């Protein structure tokens, strides 16, 4: 497997000659492409996990959480990789995901 190392170079001298992924995305984050951030309103969320199914990245994690007697997990946006495409907000059946503008 590709090395899990952070890729950094200073210029032409030490960079590879073509665009090539050299390290694992586990350490090389891609979330900085995003200009809209999804924010889940857990009050309205029905925990159907449709957002998790549709996320193309996939950057919606499932975390353990005792929401009710029957529900023991919740969707959490992984902002390290979320590109802000808004598919989760579009697909959410109760419209509990809001796309908020990223501030620099």
């Amino acid at each position, binding site marked *: 497997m*590709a090395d899990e190392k952070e890729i950094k170079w200073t210029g032409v001298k030490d960079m590879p000659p073509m665009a090539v992924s050299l390290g694992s995305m586990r350490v090389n984050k891609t979330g900085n492409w995003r200009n809209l951030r999804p924010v889940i309103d857990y009050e309205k969320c029905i925990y159907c996990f449709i957002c998790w199914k549709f996320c193309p990245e996939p950057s919606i994690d499932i975390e353990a959480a005792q929401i009710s007697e029957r529900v023991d997990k919740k969707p959490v946006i992984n902002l390290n990789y979320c590109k802000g495409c808004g598919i989760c907000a579009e697909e959410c059946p109760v419209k509990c995901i809001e796309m908020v503008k990223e501030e620099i």
Partner: protein
Amino acid sequence: MRSVIMGNHALSYGAKLSRAQVIAAYPITPQTEVVELLSQLCANGDMKAKFIKVESEHSAMAASMGASATGARAFTATSSQGLALMHEVLHWAAGARLPIVMGNINRAFGPPWSIWTEQNDSIAQRDTGWLQIYASSNQEVLDSIIQSYKVAEKISLPIMVILDAFVLSHTYEVVDIPEQSIVDKYLPPLEMEYKLDWKNPHAFGGLTKPDWYYELRYQIEEAQEQAKKLIVDTGKEFKEMFGREYGLVEEYKMDDAEIVLISSSTIASTLHVVIDELREQGKKVGLLRIRVFRPFPSEELRKILKGRKKVAVIDRNISFGHEGAFFTETKAALFNEKDHPPIFGFIAGLGGRDVTPDVLKDIFNIVETTEWPEKDIYWIGVKL
């Protein structure tokens, strides 16, 4: 082994001797017999290579790229419209830094349909990042393929070896086909640092933002620059093993030449004869053949043309609305030199019109009798 072969087959044997592992080609016009022979060699087991028949030249280059990206030595060949159809992927091959070698037979674009020689097809690809070598004999065609793999694989850029349609491609000449064992010593198997490998997976060519794209382009330019020395050095190494040497340019009777005729490909071959004749008449004239067009040997041209009285460039190509490409580049190379000689530009032989010794003597007469170019460009032999 000395054999009498045509230029097309010089390309094929070059690819065979280089142990090309994948050949992807579209076999229909404007293709020539290059891949016909290669497909036979693959089919009867003389060549241990995968021959992929594809549905277009675009796919031929795409398949060559796929093969090359896995670390295999890839070869293809095409011509005119076929090369034009490859255009989009030619940029990709260079940008991906794949050491593919391709033969291109210079054929004129349609319409009207033509299968005869003209350089517009390859000249139209000069900004793709590919190196371009224009050969002037069948021996040079074969040798250039072997040399090209050596250079391409060192600088990670693709190379086009180019020859004139019919005048070379379908003309039979004596060619020394070297022993495989010697070629193997000259050209070791391809080792690529970055390649498609399921044991060490990478993604290639991903979206690169302006913060690093610019540097990747600079690296291509650096590699092109590096190629100039490499072509000369590997050419010397080639001479030691095979007895023949080729560099960026070829000089013929240049020592005391006051008038220099510059050309490429087979027009330059014919110029040898013309220069011999003119020399017998006491004319101080020499030939400078530009063999490598990309990278362009500006430095060499400046050095060689310093102090000459007149220079003429004969182009078998035309950038419509302007002039010939070799002329443009030669002028550009000399522009910042103080007291550079006048440079005359000639168009000749488009669409395969014969450029005979008489045509070239006419050109010499114009240059000899004209003090400074009176026209931006001279068209030779047009029936007005």
